[in-house]
């Protein structure tokens, strides 16, 4: 088999996995049964390790990632070369950028610069792990699967539905602050202008983790015989894994593309079983750097002023307590994609820098639909609990507050009461007031019945800011245990309220 057909096979496998990823992404929508949409995350060992450490609990949903660990211990970093959808995108861009590549350093694996840059991914990995030990997870900024999924949700989906929606009835998907996701991904993809697979070689912490495992992998590329030192393999290797000075192929860098094996004129490089270990290249100074970074980053993230002054941060129903939530949520945006009202949106800085792109309900765009618990069903890590539909309707995520100075009924004496009309929980009551023989119905919120779903806020007919807004007053966040209490059931049963007769009636007897 020639290299060309080998490369073709690898490209086909990569594209199959990429399409599978996109297929799962598209299946993440209302009306489709939630079954294996989270497959990729379930096999991601970095998420499993980091989240388990950071949240001090066993994230059992990701236990399958052990399989990827074993696979890497057997075959090396094939995840990076064959499966990772971000890797596939990078390969795609690299194949274009290779023509305009800037040569900024000699391709010399022995140089000091080279070793320093190559170790960056270990520093990133150590930084994530040490921060997790200190109780904060940063994994969502660096995990390649999450980055790619976020790119699909916040950038591709709005763009595609915008065009599709302009000539069909497809709903346009909105996402806040998507430009930052786009810039991040552009940064990763365009770094191919310096070196191929820049992200994978220097930054990706999942790559770093798999790289450490690959160094002791059983199958790897080896020089079977002394070679003529033509330097061809060293030149073609996309991840600079080959050093001819030491006749060494670093399995930790190799992504299994087979180029060297097929381009070597002497045919001395073979992918075979070999128990030779590679240098680990992780030094004490890496630990110190990572710990130092974590020591600064963790307090900065923990002491964030946003928690105190933002009462508008509404998390999806069933979200576990905030600190646990931030440590368990990977900000992949699956709940945001699946939300049928589009009300779930990525945060910008509402919950601090570490909450960037985490989900919150922007009720002005859409409320939390009563007949839906998809965000909990889809969440790959359990940051949003998978509550039964009935129980979900009992979760209080906030309380609606009427701004009487903006309300049409209160301030302009109009017959409105759309909030009352829209409320699925009968939490808004209409009480009449008669001024100079004119009867006007005014809305009141019954905070005991209000769940903070925000449907009233989304439907308020005034322009701009709604006259009824949901604040996180009284929100319930439970790690375990039922949200249904006897008091709540009793309240709902007695919901035949003391509402007044609508002002749309003309009452004769008074």
């Amino acid at each position: 088999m020639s290299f060309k057909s080998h490369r073709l096979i690898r490209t086909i496998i990569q594209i199959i996995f990429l399409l599978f990823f996109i297929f799962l992404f598209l299946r993440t929508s209302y009306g489709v049964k939630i079954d294996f949409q989270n497959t990729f995350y379930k096999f991601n060992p970095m998420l499993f390790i980091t989240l388990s450490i950071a949240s001090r609990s066993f994230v059992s949903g990701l236990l399958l990632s052990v399989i990827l660990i074993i696979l890497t211990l057997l075959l090396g970093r094939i995840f990076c070369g064959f499966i990772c959808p971000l890797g596939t995108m990078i390969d795609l861009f690299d194949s274009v950028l290779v023509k305009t590549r800037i040569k900024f350093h000699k391709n010399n694996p022995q140089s000091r610069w080279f070793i320093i840059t190559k170790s960056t991914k270990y520093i990133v990995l150590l930084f994530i792990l040490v921060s997790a030990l200190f109780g904060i997870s940063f994994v969502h900024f660096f995990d390649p699967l999450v980055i790619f999924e976020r790119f699909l949700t916040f950038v591709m989906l709005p763009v595609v539905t915008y065009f599709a929606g302009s000539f069909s009835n497809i709903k346009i998907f909105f996402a806040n602050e998507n430009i930052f996701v786009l810039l991040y991904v552009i940064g990763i993809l365009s770094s191919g202008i310096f070196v191929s697979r820049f992200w994978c070689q220097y930054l990706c912490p999942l790559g770093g983790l798999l790289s450490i495992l690959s160094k002791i992998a059983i199958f790897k590329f080896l020089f079977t015989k002394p070679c003529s030192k033509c330097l061809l393999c060293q030149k073609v290797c996309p991840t600079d894994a080959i050093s001819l000075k030491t006749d060494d192929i670093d399995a930790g860098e190799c992504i299994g593309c087979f180029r060297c094996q097929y381009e070597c004129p002497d045919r001395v490089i073979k992918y075979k079983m070999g128990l030779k270990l590679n240098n680990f290249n992780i030094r004490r100074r890496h630990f110190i750097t990572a710990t130092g970074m974590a020591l600064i980053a963790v307090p900065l993230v923990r002491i964030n002023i946003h928690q105190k002054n933002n009462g508008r941060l509404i998390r999806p129903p069933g979200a576990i307590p905030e600190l646990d939530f931030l440590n368990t949520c990977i900000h992949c945006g699956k709940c945001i994609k699946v939300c049928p009202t589009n009300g779930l949106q990525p945060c910008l800085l509402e919950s601090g820098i570490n909450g960037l792109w985490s989900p919150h309900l922007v009720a002005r765009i859409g409320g939390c639909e009563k007949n839906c618990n998809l965000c909990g069903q889809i969440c790959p890590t359990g940051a949003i609990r998978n509550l039964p539909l009935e129980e979900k309707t009992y979760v209080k995520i906030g309380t609606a507050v009427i701004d009487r100075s903006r309300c049409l009924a209160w301030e302009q004496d109009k017959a409105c009461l759309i909030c009352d009309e829209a409320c699925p929980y009968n939490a808004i009551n209409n009480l009449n007031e008669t001024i100079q023989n004119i009867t006007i119905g005014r809305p009141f919120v019954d905070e005991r019945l209000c769940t903070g779903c925000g449907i009233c806020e989304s439907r308020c007919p005034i322009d701009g800011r709604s006259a009824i807004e949901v604040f996180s007053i009284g929100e319930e966040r439970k790690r375990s245990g039922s949200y249904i209490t006897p008091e709540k059931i009793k309240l709902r049963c007695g919901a035949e309220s003391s509402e007044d007769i609508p002002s749309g009636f003309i009452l004769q007897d008074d």
Partner: protein
Amino acid sequence: MGKISRRDFLKAGAATVASIFIPRFFSGSEVKSDKGPLIGVAYGNKEKLVAGAIEQIGGIERFVKSGNRVLIKPNISFAANAECGATTSAEIVKQIVQLCLNAGAVKVIIVDYPLANAEICIEKSGIKEALIDKTKVNILMLSKERQFYEVEVPDGKALKTVKIAKELNNVDTVINVPTAKSHSATGVSLGMKNLMGLIWDRNIFHRSNLHQAIAELATVVKPHLTIVDATRALTSGGPGGPGKTVILNTVIAGTDIVAVDSYTTGITQWYNKSFTGRNVKHIVAGYKLGLGEIDTEKMQIKKVEV
């Protein structure tokens, strides 16, 4: 094939030319007699309600001719459970669809502009039950501004212009199928209120004078037939429910939308009180605009048990 005589040709030609001058959408057949508007009421067996009520006002053939396209406007705007009464029951819509198809309709389009997520509304209302012939019947959930066009409201006080569904112009017959329910702002939500599901910006109504706006909308959007689903009436907690639901097993049909609304207001108590059409602001406003009869004594009510 017989020869076409010159006389026949001229007749057909004249008819064709004449038909151009009849705006399609405003051609509601108005059979007005001295006795006031005809109201057909059927109660009893759920499965025969629609046929029974329409039979009383001259049969479906009066409204749907062979080859016609029919638009049905039920209320499937809420993601509420069907039994609660916030939405038109699928069973009633199904019966209407069946009658239209029997009368030779080539296309029946079930249209609404839902307030909640369209998919959930379709699922919760069970409206798919009405899709008895998938080639001829379909559901259109409006969602885009381009599906509406602007019309002027002649002599409008609350509304100057309003954007109504374009689909109204592509059909020969419009059948308005509200469900009988209470409404926290307008008192009751029946035939006239249901037409708000065919316009783009409902919010303007609330910022203006709501009751007057509803009546003025009925001067622009004129359904040929209004059939109220009063199999169960949501008599409080409307329009979204949950609230008190009363089983009435009744269907009311008529061409006069004010008369139908006014009559339906009187068939049950709302918020545990009795009302007539004269007690409902938007029905009174419709009556004052000359849209129809408000007093039940002046109506010709044909009641039948099926």
